[in-house]
């Protein structure tokens, strides 16, 4: 944008420091060549004694900075209010940190579990889930995760909600009772705080230490003092599991060794049974497969969904036939936008031609008629089409009154593709007429007269002489109409019925109703890419230089 060199017009009209710089450079070169015997003449100097080259470069830099400063407000505005939110939204299409952030232990524990094995994971994974879910429940994050995973596997939402209600009441108080029976000082939170300050203890009880850190971090964030709150069953459970695993070797505190010696005889609680009690779906390997498949921080899942594929525990597959919808909608959106663009050209071209060939006064008056729709609310115009096109509407009533169609078989013109095309053509027509009109105004009528005087028929004169000159207007109008209609939302929603809706209607649904923003972002990204592709194809075929707005 700050590159003034590319604005060819400026180079042609007025000399810039840039030209002078080239000039100076070539001057230098010439002088060097003309100075045989090493007795080089000094570089050309500016009036203040600095070398001309440097002084010009400085002038150029200053000019560029000034240009940049002038556009800076707009640039910053666009960056902050347009580019940044779009980039943020698009980023959501791959972002998937919620699983690994909410279930960090589970995600690690699941690494070695084989999702193809057809059996749920072993107890250690359930222990990891127990800790994760307990903390997530306290933070109210488990239902959010459930909603996220429910997009991939039906039923996970209530699985997490139900289990969240139960996770604080698991039978793991057995461990609490047995440990505190051996040594009541474990009941005192101060014991735990002191215990967890020693590195040796932490090394001997790794799982407990990690869980303790997460739990106390949560307590602190809530304004509670970990040294004053009762110790939860979940921490006694991790303590038991650690001691059974490591035997507490290396622990600095004798109390740990005391418990470690006794854990072999403890009554145990099967965590997988506890979870299965809360909801039997925890024994379904598919649920675990889904958690594992969506554990990475970034996922192609949303993009796969938006092209009617899905990421399952068993790899990437096509969606069942009865759920495929997005490819169909993408194709329909592109197709209908093309049809709308074509109808705008067909309807707009003659209007623009008349406007361009009428005396200015009359043309201006008629122009108001073209602009009038711009001053009416989009919703009003769309609803007006509803009144016009519906079966008990104005057009059908007139046709029946004229006897052209029978009362029983009134035409169906709305809540389908036809209705959408009619309404959107009408709404977008000014975007075609205006660029066409301004281009046609610049076409000299003398060319047509010259063609005719040289013997061309009316059609040849139009097709060979007039039409090629109006192509830049068609180009500009088509790009405007096509891109606008691809992203149209409100009109297809109101008059589109089931066969006339666009992909944008699904995007809106996922943004505001299903709250699946990741999928909406992926659909939006694909739409953006499609528009850019269209633009590129257009550039290849017609050439973007060949577009004129006036």
């Amino acid at each position, binding site marked *: 944008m700050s590159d003034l060199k590319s604005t060819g017009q400026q180079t042609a009209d007025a000399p810039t420091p840039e030209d002078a710089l080239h000039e100076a450079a070539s001057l230098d070169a010439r002088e060097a060549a003309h100075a045989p015997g090493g007795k080089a003449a000094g570089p050309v100097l500016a009036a203040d004694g600095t070398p001309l080259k440097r002084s010009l470069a400085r002038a150029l830099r200053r000019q560029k900075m000034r240009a940049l400063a002038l556009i800076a407000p707009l640039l910053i505005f666009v960056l902050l209010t347009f580019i940044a939110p779009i980039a943020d939204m698009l980023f959501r299409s791959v972002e998937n940190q919620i699983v690994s952030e909410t279930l960090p232990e589970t995600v690690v524990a699941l690494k070695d579990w084989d999702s193809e094995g057809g059996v749920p994971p072993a107890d250690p994974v359930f222990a990891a889930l127990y800790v994760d879910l307990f903390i997530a429940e306290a933070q109210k994050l488990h239902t*959010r995760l459930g909603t996220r995973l*429910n*997009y991939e596997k039906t039923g996970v939402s209530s699985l997490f909600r139900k289990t969240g209600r139960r996770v604080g009441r698991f039978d793991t108080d057995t461990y609490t009772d047995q440990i505190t029976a051996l040594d009541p000082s474990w009941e005192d939170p101060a014991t735990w705080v002191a215990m967890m300050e020693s590195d040796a203890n932490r090394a001997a009880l790794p799982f407990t230490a990690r869980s303790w850190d997460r739990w106390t971090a949560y307590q602190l964030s809530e304004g509670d003092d970990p040294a004053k709150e009762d110790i939860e069953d979940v921490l006694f459970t991790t303590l038991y599991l650690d001691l059974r695993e490591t035997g507490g070797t290396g622990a600095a505190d004798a109390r740990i060794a005391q418990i470690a010696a006794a854990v072999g005889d403890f009554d145990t609680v099967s965590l997988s049974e506890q979870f299965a009690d809360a909801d039997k779906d925890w024994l379904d390997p598919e649920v675990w497969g889904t958690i594992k498949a969506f554990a990475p921080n970034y996922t192609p899942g949303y993009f796969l969904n938006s092209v009617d594929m899905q990421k399952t525990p068993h790899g990437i597959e096509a969606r069942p036939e009865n759920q495929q919808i997005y490819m169909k*909608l993408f194709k329909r959106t592109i197709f209908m936008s093309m049809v709308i663009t074509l109808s705008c050209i067909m309807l707009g071209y003659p209007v623009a031609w008349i406007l361009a060939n009428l005396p200015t006064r009359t043309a201006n008056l008629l122009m108001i008629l073209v602009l009038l729709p711009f001053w009416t609310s989009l919703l009003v115009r769309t609803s007006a089409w509803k009144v016009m096109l519906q*079966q008990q509407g104005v057009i059908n009533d007139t046709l029946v009154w004229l006897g052209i169609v029978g009362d029983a078989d009134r035409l169906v013109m709305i809540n389908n593709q036809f209705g959408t095309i009619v309404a959107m053509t009408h709404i977008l027509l000014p975007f075609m007429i205006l660029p066409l009109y301004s281009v046609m105004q610049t076409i000299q009528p003398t060319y047509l007269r010259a063609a005719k005087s040289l013997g061309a028929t009316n059609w040849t004169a139009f097709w060979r002489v007039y039409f090629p000159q109006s192509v830049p207007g068609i180009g500009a109008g088509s790009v405007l109409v096509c891109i606008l209609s691809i992203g149209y939302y409100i009109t297809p*929603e109101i008059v589109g019925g*089931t066969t006339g809706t666009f992909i944008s209607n699904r995007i809106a649904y996922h943004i*505001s109703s299903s709250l699946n923003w990741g999928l909406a972002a992926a659909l939006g990204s694909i739409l953006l890419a499609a528009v850019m592709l269209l633009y590129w194809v257009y550039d290849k075929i017609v050439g973007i230089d060949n577009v004129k707005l006036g």
Partner: protein
Amino acid sequence: MKIKSLAALAASTALLAPMAMAADMADSMTLVSWGGAYQKSQVNAYSEPYMAMHPDVEVVWDESSAEAVAKLRAMNEAGNVTWDLVDVVAADAIRLCDEGLAMEYDPDDLLAAAPDGTSAGDDFGDLIVSDCFIPQIVYSTAFGYRTDLVGDTPPDDICDVFDLETYPGKRSLEKRPINNMEWALLCDGVAKDEVYDVLATPEGQEKALAKLGTIKDSVIWWSAGADTPQLLADGEIVMGSTYNGRLFSVIEEQKQPVAMLWDAQVFDLDGWIIPAGLPADRLARVKDFVMFATDTQRLADQAKYISYGPARASSAPLVGKHADLGIDMAPHMPTDPNNAKNTFLYNYEFWADYRDDIDAKFQAWLAQ
């Protein structure tokens, strides 16, 4: 001069003293609702009496309930929640609660007890379907039909919707699977208490879509609550589903030749949620307002303006006549025994789980 200003100071402190309590509360609040007749009924029944009691409080209404969940999530992410109280349907309240966007509350603490001393928790009973949801009204999605287009035998069974021979013409159904799938299964011979078990299976979903497929060509799918009333008024459709309050206004206020088909109406709830994380002064104001606006009398008052049933058991006997039309409102309530012979209660848990899955199938089916 000095004495004068001192006196003025003393006078103003004396004036301010009783306001000290109120000073802890924000003096404006933003309420979010659905717009239209429903919001008007809330303004009449809740906010105007409240403002009469607290003239210094400014109440701003925002008509964003339809996108409330998405907007609230966006506000929360931006760290700037500008709403103080949001009117949402129960399903949305559950989702907001799940997402941690709505505040959990204790009914007996936040809400007023009934005049007879019944605690709020008991008075609202099972209608508190989520820890964040403060119920206001019971509404239903039911059918209305054109009395002049159905001949001598007006429809009285939900399955008449699927009967194209007796009732030819178009029908309107909502462009989403919820309710439609249940009705389809009911009319495909599935017993009422098995509907959700059947609907949980892929075969059951196919079955429901197949039943809907028998009338698919005669259906206009609506997405805004105002569509069906307009289509009925224009005679575009023979019958159509929408919220019962909308049908009431077509029948009683606009006097269109339309009547209610209450059979298998689906009850749903609408109420308030308080956004999570409000600053203390705004929260105090909202709590004060909610305590007032959900008491027994206020809920009963709302029924003067719109035909939705109050969510409190103790409000039901107080429902009187329409404020302008002067007709008895009780027979127009979805909860009236004559209307509630055969009803369905929106199954929140089921739809929270199956919504995405069934919606994908439903939309793919629609697009075919």
